[in-house]
Structures are given as C-alpha cells and as structure tokens.
C-alpha cells in the first residue's frame, strides 16, 4: 500500500514539474531557444501573484486573472525587445542573455522583496483530501495541480494543431526562412510564443507558491526540474513533457522512500540514464 501511495503522490508532484517544463518545451520547440531564466520567471510570477494579492486582497487562484495577462505581456515585450536580437545560427548569445536575465531577476527580487520566504495561502482547501483506500489519500490541491497541468498541455496541443497561430508556430519552427517568404513575421510569431510561455509560467508559479514556500533564490532549482522533464519526455513533444514530469516526480518519490537523502538524486539519475540510453528522450517529436 505504501508503494501505491508513494507512486500516486509522485505522479501528482509530476504535474507541477510538467507545469514548470511546458513553457520551456514550447519555446525550445518554436525557436530553439534555451531559456536559462525560465525558473526565475516562475519565481517572479509567484511574487507577482503575491503582490497582486497584497494589493487587492483576492485569493491566489483569483489573482491569476491579473497575473497571466501581465506575465504574457512581459513575455511578448521581452521577446520583441531583447531575445529576438539574440536569435541567430549561433546558440550561444541567447544562452548568455537569458543567463544574465536570470541573475538580474534573482537580485531584483531580493532587492524588492528581501530574502524572506513567502507562501500563497489557499486556506483549508490545502489540507483537504479524498480518501481512496487505507494509506492512500489524495489531496485536493495536488490533484488540482495535476488536472491543470493536463489541461494546459491539452490546450496547447489544440492550439498548436488546430489554430492559425499554432500553424504559424509550427511553420517558423520547421523553416523560418520559408515561413518568412510566405508572409509570416517571425519576430511577432516568436513574441507570441514567448507570451504563451509566460502565461504557462504564471500558472506554474502560482501553483508552486501554494504548494510550498518560495524565495528569490529558488529559480535555478525549478529550471533543472523543468529541463529534466523536457529531456526525459523528448524535445518539442508536449505530452512527452507531461510524461517526463510524471517520471521525474515518481523517481524522486521512490528515491525518497528508500532514503529521503536520495530524493533529488534519484530524479537526476533517472534523467541521466534516459539521456544515455535514449538521447532523443522517450517520446521524440518525430515519433509522436
């Protein structure tokens, strides 16, 4: 019974990791950009939600009404004004620029909000749960997180394959030059992709902040979980990313069951194993 419970809890944590990873996967899929500041953007949107809640007194989930558009707008401008200038054949400039951005965000947050950790409070919903069987309880909140992760991936998948902007995303991804010849403005397509990415990041940030405490230095840790989920699932495949998050969550939970010191380590080991055996990830884009 223990193991069933551990695996279920691991799957649910995996939902959160998938939320961390989806935005990263989307950006890499569309423009081959590796965003080192992704984790810090997650933390920054948690702080944004915290700020909105302080100002208006609304709950964390309601705050998303303001946080998602604000984050998306920021993403659009970030891509248009900064990151587009770095995109070229060379993959190094965007890495360096987003690395710098990561440091700026961390120190900016430290300056504005201090190193104090915060948590977004959802009241008694946080501790309520469904009793499945003896020894197995599923918390409403982890379940909601997982459901949101599935919904986000499903939504993005629909957008990608059944909408004009999705077609544009796929076109610039497949061949930016030809896409441009066909009348697409690559720069605004990229900016829209980044806006979409930041909208997902905002959701991830708020769910992370309800689950546990956050502070300005947490970003890089979230980035690693996101990265690992993307690589495990296969680059550019959104359902694969969800699977990657779940595999990472379960691996960590199983590791922790053996010894809590192994919690993070076992996640990293699974990631390295998959990288060694299947460098393309479990569900690479072509196969899906």
């Amino acid at each position: 019974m223990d193991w069933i419970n551990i695996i279920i809890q691991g799957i649910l944590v995996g939902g959160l990791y998938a939320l961390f990873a989806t935005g990263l996967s989307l950006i890499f899929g569309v423009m081959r950009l590796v965003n080192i500041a992704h984790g810090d953007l997650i933390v920054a949107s948690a702080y944004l939600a915290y700020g909105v809640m302080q100002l208006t007194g609304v709950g964390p989930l309601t705050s998303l009404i303001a946080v998602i558009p604000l984050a998306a707008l920021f993403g659009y401008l970030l891509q248009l004004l900064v990151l587009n200038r770095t995109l070229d054949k060379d993959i190094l400039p965007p890495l360096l620029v987003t690395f710098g951005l990561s440091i700026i965000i961390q120190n900016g947050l430290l300056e504005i909000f201090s190193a104090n950790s915060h948590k977004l409070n959802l009241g008694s919903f946080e501790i309520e749960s469904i009793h499945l069987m003896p020894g197995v309880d599923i918390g409403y909140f982890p379940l909601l997180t997982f459901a949101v992760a599935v919904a986000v991936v499903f939504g993005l998948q629909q957008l990608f394959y059944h909408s004009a902007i999705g077609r544009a995303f796929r076109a610039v991804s497949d061949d930016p030059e030809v896409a441009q010849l066909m009348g697409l403005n690559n720069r605004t397509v990229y900016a829209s992709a980044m806006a979409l990415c930041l909208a997902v990041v905002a959701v991830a940030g708020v769910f992370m902040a309800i689950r546990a405490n956050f502070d300005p230095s947490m970003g890089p840790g979230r980035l690693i979980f996101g990265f690992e989920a993307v690589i495990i699932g296969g680059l550019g495949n959104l359902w694969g990313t969800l699977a990657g998050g779940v595999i990472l969550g379960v691996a960590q939970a199983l590791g922790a069951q053996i010894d809590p010191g192994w919690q993070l380590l076992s996640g990293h080991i699974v990631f390295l194993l998959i990288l060694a055996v299947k460098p393309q990830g479990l569900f690479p884009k072509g196969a899906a």
Partner: protein
Amino acid sequence: MSKIIMLNRRQILTGAGALLAAPALLRATRASAADATFKIGYVSPTTGPIAGFGEADGFILEGVRKAFAGLTNNGKPVQVEIIAKDSQSSSNRAAEVATELIEKDGVNLLLASATPDTANPVADQAELNEIPCITSIAPWQPYFFGRNGDPAKGFNWTYHFFWGLEDVIGNFISLWDKSGVAKKVGGLFPNDADGNAWGDPKLGFPGPLEKAGYALTDPGRFQLMNADFSSQIAAFKAAGVEIVTGVTIPPDFATFWSQAGQQGFKPKVVTVGKALLFPSVIESLGERGDGLSSEIWWSPSHPFSSSLTGESSRQIADGYTKTTGKPWTQPIGFNHALFEIAADVIKRAADLTDPKAVIDAVAATDLKTLVGPISWKGGPANPVKNVVRTPLVSGQWQKQGDKVELVITNNSQYPSIPVGGELKLLS
C-alpha cells in the same frame, strides 16, 4: 611685491620631515586620547527563511546603544560603535559579512547569533583572523563539533552560550512522558548542521530516545526547502507514530504539516525545534498552529533580568510589544545577552586595543544575564572550554482568546522557571 618667499633646501627638508612624521604623531595622539572607539560587529539573519531570529534586532540594538553610552574602561569613557550586518539566512553570506567586518571595518569584537549556519561561519572567520568572538542561539554540539572542535583543546578566540542537545532531548522526553501517548516518535531531520547533529546516532536523539523506551522512525536526511514529504508521512503512518519531532526551518515544517493534513496523518504531539519558535509562523499555520509544542529558551516568565539595563524579562518583552506592536520572541533574550556580555567585557578588559586582553576578559566572564548565569571558567555548565549551557524548558502554543501564546508546560530541567499550564493533545 618686493619680498618673495623663497624656500631654501634646509627649510624644505624640515617641512618634509614634519610631514612624514605627522601620521606617526597623529596615531600616537589618537592612541592616548580618552575617547577611543571600540567597534562591535554583529551578524544575524534579518531576511531569509530564518529571519524570525533577527526580527527583534532593531529594537534590541536601539536599547543597547542607549545603555552603552556611559561605558568606561580603566576609568576612561569608551565610545562603542555597533555595526550590524544581515546574513540573509545563508552561511556563505554570514562568512562574507564577517570577513568584511574584520577587514574593512576593523571591528574589535564579533557577535553572531541564530543557528549554526550563522554562528559557525562567523566564529570560523574570527578564529582564523584572531578576533574575539561571542556567539549564541545554536545548540552547542553543532557549534562545537560542526567546527571540528577538539574538546581537549577548544578554541582560542571564540566563545559560545546556548543549550545543548542533551537539554533539548531531556526536555522533549519529559514533555512526552507526561502526555501519556504511545512511545512512537517520527523524526524530521534535514541535511543541515542542525539536522545532522540532532539525528546523529551518537550525539543526537536516537540513543537517548531508545534508552527512554521510545521507538524512533527516522526516514533519513532530506534537502532544505523540500517540496514533498509524502515518504516521511507514509513511514510515520506505517510505524504508528503518535509523536513528531525534529529540527526544521519554518517553511519545511509548513509544507510537511499541510501534506500531513492532506494525507490524513494525525499525530497527537508535535514537538519540533527551530520551526515553531515564532508567533508569526504559528499564525501563518492558522487553526493548525494551535497545540504544537517547542523548546523554550527564554520567555517573559524567566526569573532573570538584564545586567545592562536592569530590566526584568517581563519588562523587556512588554517593551518590545509596546514599541513594535508584535508579540515577544525567544531570540530577544539571547541577542540582548550577547550585548550584556560585550558591555561587561568592555568594562573589564585590561586593554581594549589588544585582542588578547579582550579575549582574556571574555574567558573570565562571570555574569548574571537575561538568559541566566554565563561563565566560561569551567563549572558544571561548561561541557567544553568555550561553551556555557543556558537553562532550557519546553511548552506548547495554546489559543488564548484570539491569539496563540507560548505556555511553559514542562520545567523538569530547570525548576526555578515557573510553568504556565498543562500540555494538551492535538487529537
């Protein structure tokens, strides 16, 4: 102008000579001046996950600076400058600011407080640079053995006062003995200086618990700021744990406690070190904060008073609440006591400019402070040369009207501190 001032070679040489000699002369006059400045560097966490420890520092420093105004040494008045720095709850940052205080500010005495993550790196820098240093608010074992201290030799430049693991273990066990719940304990020990010391099979909880007839379930060390405590909760449930203990930072306890709620784990007693010290933390847990228990190192009902200001524990706590509008916290007593000892050392040191004389004065301290008697002269309260143990009791957060109050429910280790109530079970 008929007369032009002409300098000949001899005059120039005299002038230059005087100019060269000036710094030496100036320094000589400064040394003999009556109002020499004695600089105290103070490192504590005022931001970050353990910021609660430094929350009252502003209030303490204000009172202490006033009380330091009339200090004298060898019959001469002493100007004392206190330079306070924030460790941001990080041991790296603590070492960094300690180095800054030593090298840039040239402090004569270092004080540091709050968890081994602040006390140890500052003390290490002080020992290395041969600067006198007094620290507190870290159990003495992680402070002493965490710095690879040798009980036979001890340290030359660094002294410490706080209770030890033997005190907290004794307290927790007698607290639980009285509660009458099943003797099954679950331990939450993270992978940091405190967690490793508390969970250490030889120095920490496992040995004494076994002797007292308690079965300990310790799933192992976890990383700080952990997002998932499912495996710990599952292990505790499987072992039928009724008592949860450990030493976690407040954010980790909050995560554990909400997951325990989600997963239907209902212990009867939760006595956790470090995480449950502060009213702000208990309030953030809402209804589920009522009934948690903790060690108590200082409270307004401790029968001690300040050697610096003469105020009693109750007066200082009330003063804090009056000035800031916030409830009292335990570090107030200890952070205040750090400056009591500093003042006492300033009064007694043979030569304040000589670090050796200052540390000799520290070693010879025999003072009744706000947190109890402090002396490093080798009595029963000195487990090793550089450490003095202070009194420890334990108690429970209990709802009184619309706020929670920390009530002493067990004073078996130090009966002169009065108890304020009975322990109530959580479920």
